[in-house]
């Protein structure tokens, strides 16, 4: 079985098999199995409390599964979690950048953590600032940047070390509609360069930008398909309707 997983991991960025996490008598993630292809934009949706964050934490090597297994970027999440951390990028709305450091300092700090050499770091920093038109703001404190710029900077930093996969936890919450779209353009570009994107969002129009989408309900994956297929199968007008119909069936006490 294990040999098999490693064989498969050449074409898949994530292979999850019966991944489960329980807290006491509560099963937060209930035996989920799915694969994410290399270079795919994979949307991970679910109502609050459906188990998204718990699943994502396991895949990032931050929390050990109670049972089941997963291979992320070619490494086993249980036994090689440290290797995984070097091969992935992570960005969330809640935690991204150090507000009291300048734009440049944040880039240097994360570049250091990701183990970029001095020369490589200088080169990457220059390119990154240029691409985001932030050259003039290199010495600006991050806290003084508008939210949309912060999010774009944060995403760029998360993929600076060219990870094979990047996890994005609600990256566009509260961002204005124009910047939200610029952000997705960056996601498209990264995917075009072969980086696998694993993204959660509450905006259902963004679910449409994903190659495939998984919808979690009560700790299980209730549906997994391309947005187009899902809509056709459920005869729904848009992903909002698909999501609403599935998430409404949740029985888990949400208190």
């Amino acid at each position, binding site marked *: 079985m294990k040999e098999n997983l490693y064989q498969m991991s050449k074409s898949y960025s994530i292979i999850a098999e019966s991944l489960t996490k329980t807290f006491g008598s509560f099963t937060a993630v209930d035996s989920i199995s799915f694969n994410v292809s290399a270079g795919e934009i994979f949307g991970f949706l679910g109502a*609050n409390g459906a188990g998204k964050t718990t699943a994502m934490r396991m895949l990032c090597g931050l929390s050990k599964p109670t049972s089941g297994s997963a291979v992320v970027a070619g490494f086993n999440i249980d036994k090689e979690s440290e290797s995984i951390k070097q091969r992935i990028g992570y960005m969330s709305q809640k935690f991204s950048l150090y507000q009291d450091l300048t734009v440049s300092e944040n880039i240097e700090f994360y570049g250091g953590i990701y183990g970029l050499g001095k020369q490589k770091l200088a080169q990457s920093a220059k390119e990154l600032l240029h691409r985001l038109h932030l050259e003039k703001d290199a010495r600006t404190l991050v806290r003084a940047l508008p939210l949309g710029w912060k999010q774009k900077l944060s995403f760029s930093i998360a993929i600076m070390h060219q990870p094979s996969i990047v996890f994005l936890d609600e990256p566009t919450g*509260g*961002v204005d509609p*124009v910047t939200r779209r610029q952000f997705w353009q960056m996601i498209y570009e990264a995917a075009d360069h072969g980086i696998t994107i694993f993204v959660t969002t509450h905006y259902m129009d963004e679910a449409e930008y994903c190659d495939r989408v998984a919808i979690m309900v009560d700790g299980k994956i209730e549906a997994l398909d391309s*947005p187009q297929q899902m809509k056709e199968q459920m005869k729904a007008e848009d992903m*909002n309707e698909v999501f609403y119909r599935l*998430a409404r069936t*949740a029985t888990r006490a*949400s*208190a």
Partner: protein
Amino acid sequence: MAISIDRISKSYGEHKDVHALREISLSVHTGELFGLIGPDGAGKTTLFRILTTLVLPDRGSATVEGKDVRDDFRDIRTMVGYMPGRFSLYQDLSVEENLRFFATIFHTTIEENYELIKDIYVQIEPFKKRRAGDLSGGMKQKLALCCALIHRPKVLFLDEPTTGVDVVSRKEFWAMLQQLKKQGMTIFVSTPYMDEATLCDRIALIQKGSIMSVDTPENLLNKYQGDLWGIRTEHMYKALQDLNNFPSVTECYTFGAMHHAQVSGLQMPAELHNYLDRKYHKNIRVEKIKPTIEDCFMQLMQADEREPVPNE
């Protein structure tokens, strides 16, 4: 008039160089469900704090139920209910204790106004002994709403009540607001979700401290300039790049399953269709579509960006 705002400005920072609000004026009628729509950092929370008398404006004036936010702040505080953006309840108190606490500081009891909160409270009542800190997001939001309502306020202020909340809970929450509106309550609510705008009687679109438009959702949609076309092909990312290079397309952006293109000087979808065909796109679909609030918001944003921001 439940709320009247006259040229309110507010700046922060050592040098007063962060302009949170720039000469904002608007009125909210009694019994109206009024939406303040805009992204983070637009100035929504500052306006809420001024109207609930927690912060003074630098310039301009405002009244709530005829009372001045500066001179009559004590009166306003007894008349309004306020649900701030961040969870404002006492995490270590139980559901029941939180509600009783808010009732007590407004010199009332849960029993006296139970009718008003009943429909919402029954949903969290099974967990009334649980600490507020241990509730899920949706449940916290319901408790916070009950606490803001327990003294039967004349005007209800809700600052981003649905941010970070999933589609199902959001839908439930707006249904609750419709119920409260039926009972004659004035509701002033903010949200970054453009799709919620159509659930309001009137909306103000706010961006970078300025109001871009105040109107009914319907009128706002009618004011959209030019034609809007929805476009789909097999390769959406490439389509976006190609469409942005087509001269008659003033602006093209992703919009769920379609791209939305603002088009001028083009009558027939066929021209755009042919162009995409020449660019090797497959399964091309081009159709005229009706704009949404989000399309209008973006159009107004673009118009604003062409004008220089006034320096104060």
